């Protein structure tokens, strides 16, 4: 008989490590820094999640994915709690995650934090395809809340840039 006590926090993290961001399916929610904590008690399990943006439409899908993975693995009474503090930041993405994004065609923020918010376009963004730094912004708001739209002046391809946040 499987009981909740058989599932340690580490085991639950391991189960959740398979869940990907529905909008960027090459990275997991853990790699994105959204999966903050898991609180395991005798008859329940609460997953603490921090949304990337307050209006991120992927949150609903992510919550459903978490609940279904936990239920499939026999975990009783799983729940998801959204926590806004501390606020999610792109600083929580590791270099490995950023490299995965680049291979997927999304340039990741290279600087550590958004100090220069009055001039967010004053950053050097390398093209994820040809690595040229001759790029320019098309729009600060792109296909999803977290991305801006850029274009490469060398290979002429448009690409997404994950905004510093």
């Amino acid at each position, binding site marked *: 008989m499987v009981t909740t006590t058989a599932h340690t926090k580490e085991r639950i993290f391991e189960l959740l490590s398979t869940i990907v961001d529905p909008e960027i399916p090459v990275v997991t929610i853990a790699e994105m820094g959204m999966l903050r904590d898991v609180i395991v008690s005798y008859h329940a399990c609460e997953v603490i999640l921090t949304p990337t943006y307050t209006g991120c439409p992927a949150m609903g899908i992510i919550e459903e994915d978490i609940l279904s993975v936990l239920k499939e693995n026999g975990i009783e009474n799983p729940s998801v709690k959204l926590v806004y*503090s501390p606020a999610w930041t792109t600083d929580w993405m590791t270099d490995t995650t950023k490299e995965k994004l680049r291979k997927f065609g999304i340039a990741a923020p290279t600087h550590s934090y958004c100090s220069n918010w009055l001039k967010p376009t004053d950053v050097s963004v390398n093209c994820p395809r040809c690595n040229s730094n001759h790029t320019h912004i098309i729009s*600060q708001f792109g296909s999803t809340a977290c991305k801006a739209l850029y274009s490469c002046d060398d290979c002429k391809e448009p690409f997404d840039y994950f905004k510093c946040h």
Partner: protein
Amino acid sequence: MTNQEALYIYLLRLGDNALINGHRLAEWCSRGPFLEEDLAMTNIALDNIGRSQAFLKYAAAIDGKGKTEDDLAYKRGEREFYNHLITELPIGDFAYTVAKQLIMSCFDVLVFTDLSNSKDETIAGIAAKALKESRYHFVHARDWSYRLGKGTEESHRRYQNAIQDLWMYTGELFEMNEVENILLQEGISNNLQEVRSNWINLIMPILQDSSIRIPTVDYMQTGSCKGIHSEHLGHILSDMQYLQRAYPDAKW
């Protein structure tokens, strides 16, 4: 008024501002002057609706009557909404929306900077997140302000008129009543009189650099802190709340 009642009204105000502003911005969907701008307006709308969801969810928890954020958004009447009048005004032309966004994003950046240090941890958390988003909204409105103000004769005329028309709605952003005063004492809300001088310092140089004349108005609109609105809010609600009114508790 108890501290809890004050907090409830205050959270409704934060939530309603974002909800109604977001709803108006969403009207640009498929009607932007070009595709990228269509995406920008709807992205900003999404950020607003997202934060509104967070604030109203917390308001429902403080109220403690088992309601959800959707109950608060879809089942309150016009007189129970506390959004600033400027947010409910129609979107007008593109210059009018940019002018609204400049006024509101300058305000939001300053308010959320303060609230991210609120003694209420939930408000501080949502504010810290909303601040990052509002900074992008501010830069977007500021850059369009320069372009429209210094663009063609036509764009300048439209933008100048929009700023002129909207100016009388800026006074109530800084009004403080019992709700704000109670929460200010508690270190939960901020001093809107201080925000006012910071707001002027933030917006004035942008308007000057956009070759826009600063309006002088003798009269400032007021009323939303008492739930008194323009005719426009009722029309928004009749559209936004239609489904829940016609089919109560319908779910996706």
